[in-house]
């Protein structure tokens, strides 16, 4: 376990290097005034702002993080369940799947009145927004994964007349795993943006902070918020990755024999 952690840090090393390079170039671009600081604050300024307002920013981040976990958790739960349902009953899939796309395309801002009225101010609306935005990728990817299950293995399992539940747990979910994990990774990023947009409307968290700062010329604060949201997204993605490594632990998934 500890060894895995060490490997993982080593693996992430190039990303840190790249980050360093990126920040240097950014700093240079702003220092040389190639882009005005009121449009794009320099990294040092962003860090200073973040540091100065840390208590508020941290509280906002926590609140957003909480909503994201809720929204993403529900997306995974509902997304995987729906995918299983659609897979089990193709008629339902053919009838309902197109309407799931609707979920993805409706701008949250357009249905904000409905959301706020159903869920009220604050967290519940934010969670709902994170959920709506992040549902489809998990659903679509899990469904594809289920449909791409090796038909030869399916035939093998069928020989033993498993219950549908067994078929799901012992064959279909394991073999859909790489698809699901990719779907979750995509959804994690979307859940973050969903939560922030939700907070534009319903208040609270990083979204509110960005919204207020945006109209007040506080680009540095806007970018602080953006920074924190990216940190949240990256932490989520890394957490998912670590978790999936622990889950798989050297098992050769989807590797043919």
């Amino acid at each position: 376990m500890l060894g895995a952690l060490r490997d993982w840090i080593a693996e992430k090393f190039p990303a840190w290097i790249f980050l360093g390079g990126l920040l240097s170039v950014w700093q240079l671009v702003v220092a040389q005034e190639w882009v005005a600081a009121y449009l794009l604050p320099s990294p040092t300024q962003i860090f200073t702002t973040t540091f100065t307002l840390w208590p508020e920013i941290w509280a906002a981040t926590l609140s957003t993080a909480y909503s994201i976990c809720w929204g993403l958790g529900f997306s995974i739960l509902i997304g995987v369940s729906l995918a299983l349902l659609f897979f089990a009953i193709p008629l339902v899939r053919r009838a309902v799947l197109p309407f799931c796309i609707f979920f993805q395309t409706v701008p949250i801002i357009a249905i904000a009145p409905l959301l706020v009225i159903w869920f009220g101010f604050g967290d519940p609306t934010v969670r709902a927004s994170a959920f709506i935005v992040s549902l489809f990728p998990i659903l679509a990817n899990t469904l594809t994964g289920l449909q791409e299950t090796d038909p030869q293995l399916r035939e093998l399992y069928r020989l033993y007349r498993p219950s549908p539940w067994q078929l799901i747990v012992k064959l279909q979910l394991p073999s859909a795993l790489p698809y699901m994990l990719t779907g979750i990774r995509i959804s994690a990023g979307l859940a973050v943006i969903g939560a922030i947009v939700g907070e534009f409307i319903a208040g609270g968290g990083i979204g509110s902070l960005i919204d207020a700062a945006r109209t007040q010329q506080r680009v540095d604060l806007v970018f602080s918020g953006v920074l924190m949201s990216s940190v949240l997204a990256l932490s989520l993605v890394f957490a998912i990755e670590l978790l999936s490594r622990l889950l798989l632990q050297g098992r050769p998934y989807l590797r043919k024999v």
Partner: protein
Amino acid sequence: AKPLVLALNWKPEPQFGGFYAAQEAGYFRKNKLDIEITEGGSGTPTIQMLLAGRVDYAIVSGDEVIIAHARGGDIVALFATYQVSPQGIMTHASRGFESIEDVVHGDGVLLWQSGLPYSQFFRMKYAPLKVTTAPYLGGIGNFRNDAKLSQQCFVTSEPLEAEAVGLKVKTFLVAESGYNPYTTVLVTRRARLEKSPDEVKRMVGAVRAGWKDYLSDAVPTNRVMGDLNKAMSAETFSASAAAQHSLIQTTAETELGSMTQERWQTLADQLLAIDVIPKPVKVDTLFANF
């Protein structure tokens, strides 16, 4: 009992100073009211929240009141904070514009929030517009970056920020064009007013007292709001509070926040003329002075 909710349509800023002052000075409590103020954000639909009964009082703009009526939403305006609409058009002084007409007939870009009734009013009154229009999303980043760009503003906000960063600006009030809706209007549902006119009366009283305090000394309330809204600096708070003073203050004979049927009627007629509402609206019952 659960507190009554007053929904603002934006973050704590001087435009809501009186409401926070009433809370701070305890005027709500003194009037036997338990009020919770909730802040809004981009796209917070306060009027729909009010209509759906999710909140008890809301802050909306004058044109929203008329539009809601035209669509069958029965709300009553109780207190109009801005007697003169603070909406304005901010231009770079270097352009040498003398009036709104110059702006919309000039070249360059004009940023304004799409769908705002006054933009429609301009389109009718100054037709045809020559300026290129684009959506306004807040902030003055684009304004700073482009010397030929004009934008909508609250005269209490953006022009002050622009000057603070050293820009020379010239600002025109939208009201100059003849379109002058009450702004930052306290409203409630008619049902609520009819059920407990007394509570509404106490509410308006507390708000008026709050605004009186705020107009005479904004500093303590600004401090409270500053804690809630870290994005706005203390200087901006006081500058903004000073700038809005004349737009709120009424003459000696009329009380703060009071409204006239005549002005509401003008607004309704204008909105009908520019097709924002499909049918005439009766204005005599749509507001109540306390």
